[in-house]
């Protein structure tokens, strides 16, 4: 069953001007529940733009994005915020944890915004931190953790809201080989055991090698889907 469908997606920056940039040039895409997909391509190929539009962070110039039967391109800004909160998990290249919160509080944060009761969110946050191998780091703040550990907290945070899928933008770009391997193991396990859908944008061959589907973009078009 398709969880994400994009239809004839265009994103044109500075439309009509001399410096017009066609970041997406008619992208049609279907991603099914439980997929472990990597979106690859050279810099400027439109990976991040596609991820931003699928994640409701940006609007296409034309075309539509349908997530679980909801056409998110028709939602207003406030509806999109609420939609992201309840449906999409994000993992960013630079981890982007809240520096003043501990690992546990960072994971809890999304559930807190969803209005989950404290006991429930603490229980789930601890389970998730255990799942990413950080059960001993729950009370550490991000500045006391390595990059790999921070990114694992970010994965736990992304999963905390029980999203329909997780969008990860270059999640291993700042990690060393060991941390990258650990992170990929964790995400692959979560995908396999809990059926979580992961979509990555990446340059990293180690990520590409672990992906079960690889979509290649170039000049805003899908040129390969394997």
């Amino acid at each position, binding site marked *: 069953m398709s969880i994400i469908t994009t239809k004839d997606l265009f994103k044109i920056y500075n439309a009509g001007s001399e410096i017009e940039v066609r970041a997406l040039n008619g992208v049609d895409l279907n991603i099914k529940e439980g997929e472990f997909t990597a979106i690859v391509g050279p810099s400027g190929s439109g990976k991040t733009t596609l991820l931003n539009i699928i994640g409701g962070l940006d609007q296409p110039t034309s075309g539509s994005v349908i997530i679980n039967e909801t056409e998110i391109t028709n939602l207003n800004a406030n509806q999109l915020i609420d939609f992201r*909160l309840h449906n999409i998990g*994000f993992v960013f290249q630079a981890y982007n944890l809240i520096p*003043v919160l501990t690992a546990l509080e960072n994971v809890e944060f999304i559930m807190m915004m969803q209005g989950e009761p404290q006991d429930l969110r603490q229980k789930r946050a601890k389970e998730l931190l255990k799942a990413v191998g950080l059960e001993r780091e729950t009370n550490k703040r991000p500045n006391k953790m390595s990059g790999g550990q921070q990114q694992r907290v970010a994965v736990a945070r992304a999963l905390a809201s029980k999203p329909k899928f997780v969008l990860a933008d270059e999640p291993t770009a700042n990690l060393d080989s060991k941390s990258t391997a650990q992170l990929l193991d964790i995400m692959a396990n979560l995908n396999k055991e809990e059926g979580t859908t992961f979509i990555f944008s990446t340059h990293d061959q180690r990520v590409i090698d672990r992906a079960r589907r690889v979509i290649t973009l170039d000049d805003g078009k899908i040129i390969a889907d394997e």
Partner: protein
Amino acid sequence: MIQIIKIAWRNIWRNKLRSFVVIFSIVLGIWAGLFIMALTLGLNEQRMNGAINTYLSHIQIHNPDYINDPNIKSYISQPEQTLAALRQNKNIKAFSERTIVMGMVSSSKGAYGVRLMGINPEQEKQVSDIHTLLTSGTYFTKFKRNPAVIGQKLADKLGAKVRSKIVISFQDLNNDIISAAFRVEGIYKSSSSRYDEYNIFIKRDDLNRLGHLNGKIHEIAAICPSINQVDEVVKSLQVAIPDSKVQGWDEVAPELGYAQEMMSSVIYIFMGIILFALAFGIVNTMLMAILERRRELGMLMSVGMNKIKLFSMIVFETIFLSSIAVPVGMLLSYLFIQYFAHKGIDLSVAAKGLESLGISAIIYPYMPGHYYFSITLMTVLVAFLSSLVPAKKALNLNPAEAVRSI
């Protein structure tokens, strides 16, 4: 919302130096504002109290004609009725009858126009503090014949000292010129050098005798238990003695009353200007904090933090900073003002100028409690308003761009 408040609180301690700079600037702004206000209020209060205690009293009663033309013939027409009304009024603490004549005083050094205040010394002590302001001599206790108490400035101009002889001339009721020798018994120095230069106190009996005034009263000065009762007493006395003009201190010297009213408004305008400047500091610092945290704010918006929560977080950060700074600033100001309220600030270097305005050279800052309360409210309000600009800036961030910013 508790979590948002918690994050906001922790956020302000991320950059301790910046937070302390904001706190320090608010503390400094409040302290400077309040202290200057206290100084201004103290100055005005001293000027007003000095005038009331020395020469205005709370209430003055005259012949209505005397107000526009202080003529020797404009005496109170029904003195017995007036004095009876004063004695019967429970809110009159003390009063003094004055016989006042314009005249001339001369010594070997020169002659000057003066106002002769014929007083009963014991009565006058109840309504005026001149007897406590003597720099030399005594207050009508030593010399039996024609003693005079003159101001320091006049004494300087006349070259007179205690025991010096001066000649006083004036026109009596029959328009005859009267001249008499008086001996300086005491020299006073009030907070107003202009008053000291112009007013000579002599015994009322002497003035009556010399000017054939037969106990005429030109002015009655009265004191109430509290300055707040003045308006009420003026009204009741005016009803009781309709032939005389009864005036409160603020009507006799309207410039003092206006100064008092004006000061209240000026204080708020002054503080408003300080807070306005402070607001720019807060806006600037908080905008810096927003720009530094663009990526984090972008992440918060990306993962689903709604605009109300984001806005609240920024506002709370600013309010927390001011919540720390305001009590510290208030306490510091309070301690500072209290210290100098007892010790006084010596402005002797500008004594001449101040005394010509009726202000003592030592200023005692004064700040009524309600000003602390209203300034606190103003500061918190300004901090809140200042937080709206950076909060709005945060809301305008594009999460997709902000999250990837460096």
